[in-house]
């Protein structure tokens, strides 16, 4: 393992610098980021969609002054997209230009050198000289077998390339994996990571997030927004409003110049917050003084 000076001096500094880049971390988030740095371990971030999992990685990159390298996972992701690939076309050219002059051994050695290697996000992250934050986004989308690709890099910070040998990290990157929990990740992967669950924020934090992220919102409106969203989340909905949807809603209200949210405004703009018709109907039923016909609410 490479020794490197810790990025953050203490817990409080993590929290404050995250707040400086407009990311409000609670105790758990700040603590895990701090530990990830100290222990040199990747962080697996789970939680409902739209609670700022990806944003966390971006913000940490910003405060650490590091480059963010992102690997977006999808079904069918493989080695050649995640780790490295040999540049076949270039290799072919090399063979053709060689002609008859060179011996087989020379050509072979030459063909599998770094010159012909195309680095993909994971290899790039560990070969980088400058500090990086590696974000492996939506890791639950890859198949269980593909997860194994990640194991070496997550625990040893190295990549083994059969033809070339082992590439070791020049510095230990901060690694964030995010998952929306569509499937259970393998034990092997979880064991190598610190685990962080980011849930919907509580009332106060949500209010602060709204005040911080939405320009032109006043305290009073932010408070109302947060309170209404909390009440909506308590209903049994198909999809709860996420933080990003809360922010969209607050922005909408600011644009419309609304200062006091009444039931009618809330219902008229509910389609920003909720994405299913049945959910909107349910909210209308719960909140309206005299339930309006839904057709009127589709603005």
């Amino acid at each position: 393992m490479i020794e490197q000076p810790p990025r953050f001096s203490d817990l409080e500094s993590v929290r404050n610098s995250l707040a400086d880049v407009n990311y409000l971390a609670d105790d758990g988030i700040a603590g895990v980021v701090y530990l990830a740095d100290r222990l040199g371990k990747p962080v697996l971030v789970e939680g409902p969609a739209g609670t700022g999992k990806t944003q966390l990685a971006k913000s940490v990159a910003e405060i650490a002054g590091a480059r963010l390298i992102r690997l977006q996972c999808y079904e069918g992701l493989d080695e050649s997209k995640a780790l490295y690939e040999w540049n076949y076309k270039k290799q072919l050219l090399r063979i053709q230009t060689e002609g008859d002059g060179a011996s087989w051994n020379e050509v072979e050695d030459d063909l599998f050198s770094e010159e012909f290697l195309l680095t993909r996000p994971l290899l790039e992250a560990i070969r980088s000289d400058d500090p990086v934050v590696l974000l492996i986004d939506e890791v639950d989308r890859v198949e269980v077998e593909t997860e194994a690709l990640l194991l070496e890099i997550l625990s040893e910070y190295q990549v083994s390339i059969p033809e070339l040998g082992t590439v070791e990290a020049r510095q230990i990157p901060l690694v964030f994996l995010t998952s929306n929990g569509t499937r259970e990740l393998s034990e092997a992967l979880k064991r190598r990571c610190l685990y962080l669950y980011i849930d919907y924020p509580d009332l106060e934090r949500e209010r602060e997030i709204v005040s911080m992220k939405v320009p032109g919102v006043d305290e009073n409106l932010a408070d109302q927004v947060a309170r209404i969203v909390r009440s909506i989340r308590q209903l049994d909905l198909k999809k709860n409003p996420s933080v990003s949807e809360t922010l969209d809603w607050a922005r909408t209200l600011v644009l419309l110049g609304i200062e006091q949210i009444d039931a009618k405004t809330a219902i008229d703009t509910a389609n920003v917050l909720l994405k299913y018709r049945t959910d909107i109907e349910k909210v209308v039923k719960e909140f309206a003084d005299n339930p309006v016909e839904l057709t009127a609410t589709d603005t």
Partner: protein
Amino acid sequence: MTVTDPITAPSSDQPLLGLVSGFIIELRNAGLPVSLTENLDAMEAVTHIPIEDREAFKYALGATLVKNHSHWRAFEVVFEVYFSLRGPEYEIVDGAASGDPSDDEDATMPGEGQAQGGGGGGMSALTPEQLAEMLFRALMNGDEAMLRALARQAVMRFAGMEPGRPVGGTYYLYRTLRNLELDEMLDRLMEAARADAPANLTQLEERLERDEFSDRLDRLKLEIEAEIRRRLVADRGVEAMARTLRKPLPEDVDFMHASREEMVNLKKAIYPLTRKLAVRLARKRRHGRKGPLDFRNTMRHSLSYGGVPAEPKFKFPRPAKPEIMVVADISGSVAAFARFTLHLVYALSGQFSKVRSFVFIDGLDEVTGFFEGVEDIGHAVHRVNMEADVVWVDGHSDYGHAFGVFWERYGKDVGPKTTVLILGDARNNYHASQSWILKELQHRSRKVFWLNPEPKAYWDTGDSIVGEYGTWCDGVHEVRNLRQLEGFVENLV
């Protein structure tokens, strides 16, 4: 497993590590899978954390030891038990001697501290009415410190805790809450809120106020619970408390013996479970790689390699989707199980070419219609319980008669593609078994499976005749909890 007592026998040079390892053993006892590497990580993590910061300590342990969010609750309970008595601010305070409040301490530890602030001192002198009034005002203003102090006072006064008395925490909780009359408190708070408001509250405002107050009341309840737990731990010791508080994880809760609270948790757990299962099954279907060589496709791709078939292409197998008939006993004892299974099967209906469902007690009714074109499966399951016509004579399970009806009315619909799932404990109340029907069904269908929510040890005891029916099934499975149900359904598709 040897259980180290973390209080009396910590390794002398590193008391903290001894404590953490005791804590981890208790986590394992509670059913959380903690591996050796995670154990080591936790040990290392706590050395980086300022030890007086309780929240940070908790999250450090959580991040390294708990890798599944549904286990977090269990972790918290063990944590509270293990670390509730540590640190001077957690000493049990009796009567008025509530210690001298030091405010700087409170500042470093948000959410902690004790009977500080207004009224911490002379509370025991108050009459119950005054106490209720203080509680009312604290709830009205959302005064956290005050609520905490009042929670302690309430436990001291109403719970009637006696050392060594073998009663569970819930009993004390019940006693305390009954004396505080919190339901009426909510009404009072709402009235006060209405009186304070300049105009009439709209339904929205009313709703928001109510949610706010319920939230504060919930927090008060949590405080009371924590206080009771602290006192119990002080009385009985960590090990004993950890044992009594040990609860099965949501996926291990027995369907037939779930408490009301566990039922609520189960219902919450079933939705993410079905989603995960659906994704996994859809994936499995697409990614079977055992298909035969697709000659045409391979030739087509060989063109870009100058006619050399460098990249063999394979056909994807497309297994036929099974057709499912669910026949479920919904009499009292096994109703919960039938509900969960119906829920799961319909949530996965995309994986089957056709799903039909029937419920019975002693009569039988088809309920497929309830689920058609419905988005909310939970609601449909509820309707099944309310509206299905399943009682023939007396409303005691009669498998024989129910199967008879099924055979007569729907037997002709069972074909070689149909998989029949029968759910029930096969407790037939000594009626005729009519097991020849199952024999015929097995003959005619693809597979017949029986899912029994009873523990295997109870099968064929008393009026259970699962053995007789089982002779004519392709498999009889014990399905007592979500974990087993998930496993079965995955294999079914």
